[in-house]
């Protein structure tokens, strides 16, 4: 299976999980699908049969609200049975609305409150360096999460300690919970901010599998600097009527909307 096929499957699983669970955040989940597919298919060293292997690359979904897409990815990669996805957001399930490690193999960190993941990832990266280990730590953040002061505490820390085994990927879909980023708290000039904090920055079309692969296959971007990949993405990517719509941060696809979305995704 190539990363395009994996991305297609992740989207279909995610749509079904969110629809049947009556949950939200489909737009935020769809914008990271290619990033997850390329990471889990081609970049991350993972060992689904030995999920806690010390040699694995660590992955943190700091934007925990897109957890459905991560669960779908982990199931497709064999960390647990795909059937389990049907329990997402259901009574008694351990597949939470925000990504949680308890009972779920393959999740390195539980998140859900924004602005936590990069600090923990930086700690993991520092430990890796102290112990001379080769694994890398990937942290996927949202753009809205860059409003959090704690994110920038971690940005300062990682650069100061030259953690070039730490890779941040920002899902820059430019829409946050209630409105576009530019109308809420603008992040621009975004790339320059990271550069001025001494990170090595690359920008990429976050839905182009080849470009994502080429960029992520070449890390660190610069020796002795943490890397950040600003991925320009589209919220709700993959379903025409969800794309770039604030509405689909929270709206749950049901009935005809669900059928129409499924049809589009299956035709991709």
């Amino acid at each position, binding site marked *: 299976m190539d990363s395009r096929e994996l991305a297609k499957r992740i989207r279909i699983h995610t749509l079904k999980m969110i629809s049947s669970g009556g949950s939200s955040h489909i737009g935020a989940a769809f914008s990271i699908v290619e990033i997850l597919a390329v990471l889990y298919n081609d970049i991350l060293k993972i060992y689904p049969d030995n999920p806690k292997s010390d040699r694995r690359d660590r992955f943190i979904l700091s934007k925990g609200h897109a957890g459905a897409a991560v669960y779908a990815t982990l199931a497709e990669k064999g960390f647990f049975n795909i059937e389990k996805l049907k329990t997402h957001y259901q009574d008694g399930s351990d597949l939470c609305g925000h990504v949680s490690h308890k009972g779920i193999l393959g999740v390195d960190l539980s*998140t859900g409150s924004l602005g*936590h993941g990069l*600090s*923990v*990832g930086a700690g*993991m990266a*520092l430990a890796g360096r102290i112990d001379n280990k080769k694994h890398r730590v990937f942290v996927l953040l949202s753009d809205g999460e860059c409003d959090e*002061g*704690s994110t920038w505490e971690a940005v300062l820390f990682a650069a100061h300690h030259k953690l070039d085994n730490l890779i941040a990927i920002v899902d820059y879909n430019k829409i946050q919970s209630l409105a576009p980023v530019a109308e809420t708290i603008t992040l621009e000039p975004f790339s320059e901010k990271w550069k001025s904090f001494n990170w090595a920055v690359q920008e990429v079309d976050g839905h182009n599998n080849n470009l994502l692969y080429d960029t992520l296959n070449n890390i660190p971007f610069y020796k002795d600097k943490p890397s950040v990949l600003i991925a320009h993405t589209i919220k709700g990517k993959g379903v025409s009527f969800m794309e770039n719509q604030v509405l689909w941060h929270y709206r749950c696809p049901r009935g005809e909307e669900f059928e129409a979305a499924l049809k589009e995704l299956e035709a991709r």
Partner: protein
Amino acid sequence: MRDHFIKRLSELVENNPDIILITGDLGFGVFDNFRKAFPKNFINIGVAEQNMTGVATGLALEGKIVFTYSIANFPTLRCLEQIRNDACYHNADVKVVSIGGGFSYGALGISHHATEDLSIMRSLPEIKVISPCGYWETTGATEAVVNSPGTCYLRLDKSAGDDRPVDKNEKFIIGKARILKNGFDCTIIVTGGILEEVINSSAFLMSEGISSRIVSMHTLKPIDEQVILKAVEETHIIITVEEHTVFGGLGSAVSEVLMKYNYYPKKFLSIGLKEGFSSIVGSQKYLRKQYNMDAQSIYNQIKSLLVN
């Protein structure tokens, strides 16, 4: 307590290179020797407590035993959610240390009065909350938290009571309260350095023929239920003393145990801070007196409890 903590930690690091101490840019002069001797085990992370706790969790999840250190409410309240979601939920070996319990930094103002930390930290799931009463317990607790898996909160105080054990072989055990002085007319359960006041109150009572048992409840969570129940059975009257709000702290924890087991002491008194901030400042001793928590005030309150 701070010096005893760092002294014991320095000894422990020698045999355990996985121990890492992170400070949030506080502890002037305190860490000089530690940093020189163990440069790889020390990080000054800057004035960034949220990041300090998150980084500590990341290190701990990779096998380190990480102490986060700052003063007053900075390593606790400022980064409470990181302690809850990151450290506690992942059972990470993060040991949160605050120097300056209660009014240790009394003259610095309300930002530096650590007077709600115990109740807030105690309510977090899967955390151990330890508040030593003196130097001996501080030394013991430092070692105990290293050997106790998961997240711990260690509240250190500028003041200290005489908590030396009678039995030289006694070991500090998390969750095991210590009877520092036996007595039969009432039991005073205390946490933190305010033990020094309690010891004097107890002596005042003794001079009038009232024998009081002193229990050091150095661990608030998990709390030693047996020592509380036994105190009710044997002395019938319970007084709790803490340099902390009475809402949710030691007094609350003790009364929760009493209600859980339907044990009703004849009399119960919780001494601590009542509603409100202390907008006035002063030394720890001064503020204790101001809020009726000095030895004389504690004695007066116990005396009137026993008489009335």
